[in-house]
């Protein structure tokens, strides 16, 4: 099959709605198709990868650890809107330290999360073949 650029656009906070969880389920399946995969986190979507989520109090499944596994599936382009973080009083330090091992660089551990401006996000988005919104 041909290779296309897929973007997963995540704009909603986790737990309040199922979109974050079911977006992640698609991303994991997508990995098997060897497409070019990017994830974008904008607006309240940035809360999906905030560190320290604990769901015991609300009786729902905590799926945040799954984001840590994305690197093992070669999903290592997670773009986070800087403007969205700033507005919410969040910084990169508040996010989970997601990484992957670069097979082209002696398996060096590298970051998967890129905090970018909306202008940069715009360019990345314009380059996509398929955009799935959650």
């Amino acid at each position, binding site marked *: 099959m041909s290779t296309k650029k897929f973007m997963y656009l995540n*704009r909603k906070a986790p737990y309040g709605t199922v979109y974050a969880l079911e977006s992640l389920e698609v991303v994991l399946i997508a990995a098997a198709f060897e497409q070019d995969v990017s994830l974008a986190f904008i607006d309240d979507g940035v809360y999906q990868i905030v560190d320290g989520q604990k769901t015991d109090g609300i009786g729902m499944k905590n799926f945040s650890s799954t984001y840590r596994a994305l690197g093992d599936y070669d999903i290592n382009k997670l773009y986070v809107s800087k403007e969205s973080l700033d507005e919410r009083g969040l910084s990169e330090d508040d996010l989970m330290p997601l990484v992957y091992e670069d097979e082209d660089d002696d398996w060096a551990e590298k970051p998967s999360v890129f905090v970018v401006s909306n202008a940069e996000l*715009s360019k990345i*988005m314009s380059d996509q*073949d398929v955009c799935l*919104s959650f």
Partner: protein
Amino acid sequence: MLHTVNKSSFERNSLQSCVNIIDDSSVILLIEDGVISATNNTQSSIVSDLASQGRVYALQGDLEARGISSKVADNIKVVDYAGFVDLVVEHGTPVSWV
């Protein structure tokens, strides 16, 4: 690219977020409750610049359903579902701001 927005800018931030991020060649199609943002109101400025460049569309059936066909702001182009299909065909990857 074609960006679809289906919620009123009075209710949600999706239209503003879309406008903040899209590139200079993108167009916006307002559908469902999104057509409220195609009318003259206190939030018209969100899309007025893009509209004056001919880059904002609104779905006719949704305007009619909400009784606001006569209130569409200047420069916004009204299309039917066939026009929606044409926009999808002409503008490459569609992005839904759901």
